[in-house]
């Protein structure tokens, strides 16, 4: 069995390539948060407390559009509901751990760490294999906090004329690059996008993101069912 430190370091090395896209994402978040009017401390607090890139940008987007707190909080929950899947998948590797470790590891269960460590956890049966997830998660944490910090500093210096708020749809678009190749995903994307755009002014409480997201999931449920029965 490898030492805990070795497994931890392996997690850092494995997740590193996935950190490249996180850098612009964190910078954009910091810049936009300041732009919208959050204080530097609140912006840093968001990255430390929420620690979820996509949901933090959703928070900013809805906040600047004047959505109510309840809508913002449920939208953040909806965006992050994918973690339920991650947790369910990795839970079998963590079932022997003490509760305190589960509490710590949960904080680090983010997209990139899940993607890379799930592979490792499946292949290794060592008792200490979960250190890989901690290493990967901690790496993401350092990158996310430091890029947020630099974004806050840059935020004061970047002119509004550059239209950097356009980076928000672009970063989300970038997260879907692999889904544009799959038929069901394309339909889901178009349905959700249309519902959000057309309902933007008509769905009360600025809940358009939740309504659109649920419509998209409903379409996904129906389409995956149809495709399965045809096979």
């Amino acid at each position, binding site marked *: 069995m490898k030492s805990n430190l070795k497994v931890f370091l392996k997690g850092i090395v494995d997740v590193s390539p996935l950190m490249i896209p996180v850098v612009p994402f964190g910078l954009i978040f910091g810049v936009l948060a300041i732009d919208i009017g959050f204080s530097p401390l609140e912006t840093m607090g968001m990255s430390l407390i929420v620690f979820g890139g996509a949901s933090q940008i959703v928070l900013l987007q809805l906040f600047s559009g004047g959505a109510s*707190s309840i809508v913002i909080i449920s939208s953040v929950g909806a965006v992050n509901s994918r*973690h339920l899947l991650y947790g369910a998948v990795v839970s079998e590797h963590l079932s022997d751990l003490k509760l305190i470790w589960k509490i710590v590891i949960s904080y680090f269960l983010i997209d990139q760490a899940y993607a890379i460590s799930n592979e490792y956890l499946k292949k290794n049966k060592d008792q200490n294999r979960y250190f890989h997830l901690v290493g990967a998660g901690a790496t993401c944490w350092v990158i996310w906090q430091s890029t947020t910090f630099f974004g806050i500093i840059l935020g004061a210096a970047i002119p509004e004329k550059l239209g950097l708020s356009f980076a928000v749809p*672009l970063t989300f*678009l970038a*997260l879907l690059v692999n889904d544009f190749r799959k038929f069901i995903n394309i339909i889901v994307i178009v349905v959700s996008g249309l519902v959000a755009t057309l309902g933007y002014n008509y769905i009360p409480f600025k809940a*358009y993101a939740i309504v*659109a*997201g649920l419509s998209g999931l409903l379409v996904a449920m129906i389409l995956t069912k149809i495709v399965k029965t045809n096979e």
Partner: protein
Amino acid sequence: MSNWALIIYCGLITYLTRFSMIALIKKEMFNNRIRQVLSYVPSAIFPAIIFPAIFLDNSGLILIEDNPKIIAALIATLIGIFSRSIIATIFSGLASYWILIFVV
């Protein structure tokens, strides 16, 4: 609600999505069907942010003609599909947007 309260609630709900399955629920409760549908969450939710930000103007009205964001987003999508690179997608979109608003 103060900004800090909002941030803390958002953090709590996010943490619960991570912790609940690890700590409270057994894996058997998650069948393949639920797993399959949850894998569509990004495709279902991200467009709700993408589309309005591209197709609506500052006052919330649909703007199709003379909208550089649509063209820039299309270029970014194409680059994304072929490169599969997150960075290339973001920067090709931003670069085309800047060319459209400052040069053309």
